């Protein structure tokens, strides 16, 4: 698939502070999650790819065209910024229609698109209230509405779930996922792992301005194959199974969990380890009830990569 967003050696400094360092990426259609702790450089990256700031080094292009000061490209881009800032004296409706006006739509088109966007974020009933009377969640949804109102091909969402209650989060997550099917490119940033995990498996890990890893969560898992990996096995006789494991070179550590009949094995070769389990189980007549990988989630990947 042809990449929609491309960056080459993208670097950005704020005075002496490093914002982003040597980022080379290709982003294809679909949902891509940008993950990293606060201050990692997620917002800097999103600001660079939406032309809010210009890179010190490197290039950033969307659909093959540089983004900085290339305003026609913004017909295809919808951006939901991180900051909780609005034209507070406007109503929700005036805000969305006003910004749609800047896309040169006719009055009828503006009204139609604003209505649709506000319906999607469920703000139609409150559309005539001034924004400053909105709750944090409503403001967040309104930001989302202005980003999708002009039906953009590329949607960039900087921490879109901030300030939302669990129900609001689920709604927005569902909404973001629904856009995936329409061939759009969606970039979502967050520092909350389950949020990103709920939306996509394709992630970019950023830490201290650098890309730590990029790709499918399993691809990232392969990347960190050399790192220890914990697997939990619930079985009838964990001690006997453990005695077999400790003879293997790729088993680094064996622990007994506080949970009943559960064994925690730390390995640096997941594939070999998984292929060994059935044979050991049969040979020793041990009934395996459950095999899980407690750290096979984004948090674990992230923790490994940042060296926690």
């Amino acid at each position: 698939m042809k990449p929609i967003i491309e960056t080459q050696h993208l670097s950005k400094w704020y005075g002496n502070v490093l914002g982003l360092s040597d980022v080379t990426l290709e982003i294809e259609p679909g949902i891509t999650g940008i993950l990293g702790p606060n201050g990692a450089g997620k917002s800097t990256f999103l600001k660079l790819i939406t032309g809010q700031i210009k890179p010190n080094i490197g290039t950033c292009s969307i659909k093959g065209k540089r983004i900085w000061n290339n305003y026609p490209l913004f017909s295809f881009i919808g951006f939901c910024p991180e900051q909780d800032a609005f034209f507070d004296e406007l109503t929700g409706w005036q805000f969305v229609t006003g910004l749609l006006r800047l896309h040169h739509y006719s009055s009828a088109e503006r009204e139609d698109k604003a209505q649709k966007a506000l319906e999607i974020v469920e703000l139609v009933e409150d559309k005539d209230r001034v924004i400053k009377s909105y709750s944090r969640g409503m403001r967040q949804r309104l930001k989302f509405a202005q980003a999708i109102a002009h039906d953009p091909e590329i949607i960039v969402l900087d921490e879109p779930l901030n300030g939302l209650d669990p129900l609001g989060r689920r709604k927005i997550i569902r909404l973001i996922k629904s856009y995936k099917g329409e061939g759009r490119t969606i970039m979502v940033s967050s520092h909350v792992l389950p949020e990103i995990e709920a939306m996509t498996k394709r992630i970019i890990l950023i830490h201290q301005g650098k890309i730590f890893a990029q790709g499918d969560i399993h691809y990232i898992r392969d990347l960190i194959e050399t790192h220890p990996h914990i697997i939990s096995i619930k079985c009838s006789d964990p001690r006997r199974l453990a005695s077999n494991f400790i003879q293997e070179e790729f088993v680094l550590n064996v622990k007994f969990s506080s949970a009943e009949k559960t064994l925690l094995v730390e390995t640096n070769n997941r594939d070999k380890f998984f292929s060994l389990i059935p044979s050991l189980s049969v040979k020793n007549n041990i009934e395996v009830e459950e095999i899980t990988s407690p750290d096979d989630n984004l948090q674990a990947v992230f923790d490994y990569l940042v060296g926690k």
Partner: protein
Amino acid sequence: MVQDSKEKLSFFLSSLKDVYTFFFFMGKKSKKMKIFFLISILPVVIALIIKINQFFSDRTPIQGIYIFNNMTVVMYLQFLILLLALFYGTSVCSEEVEGKTLTYLTTRPVAKSAMLIGKYAAYTSLIIILTTIGVTLSFFILNLNDLLNFSLYKILLRDVVVLSLGLICYTSFFTFIGTIMKKSILFGLIFSFGWENVIQYFPGSTQRFAIAHYLKSLLPAPKTGRFSFLMFRLEPSPPLLAVFMLLLITGVFLGLACVLFSWKEYIFED
């Protein structure tokens, strides 16, 4: 090539119109505009008080047009238009940066220069309307007994034009200041009420470095007596040159502001 340029120009103008409409609406609706409207009609209240007093006073009343001319200079030319231009000029860019709303504007398919000029035009026209309402009402109140003297209307028209030119020129200058400086208001106050006043007291060509010089060149030289100190040592430029200079200053600063706004990156403060 020509076709392409024409299309670009047409797109630019259409963008300008959209930005203008958006900010004209927003500016009109804002609380600040309402407060400034109240401030700008304070001269009308003064005019009303003066007129009412004239009705009940035994003294020979001062001519309405005389008071009006002085009010134009003291209240509007030397104070209100500076204040309005300073606030709205610097608002064009600073408002978006301080309010962190710039992102909404710069992620639209509109050239940054169109964004800046459109917003400048919207705010300038709003403050011209405010000023014109105040000046016109003051004129009618102060010249209530002489409303059939049509030669007076020429004076009203002249003053409205001069004040509008002043607003256009000052707002452009402050728009530029707002794009280049973070704390533009204090610089603006020192420029408006320091530089612009002090420089006029210098003889020769020095006073030509003040915008106020060209505006005052378009007004008749005052007779000696009350208020004449306001035009102290004015060595006026010819009216045509004054208008040309005002438009040139507007164009230059607006152009510079566009270049800066297009190329400068604005980082929001936390």
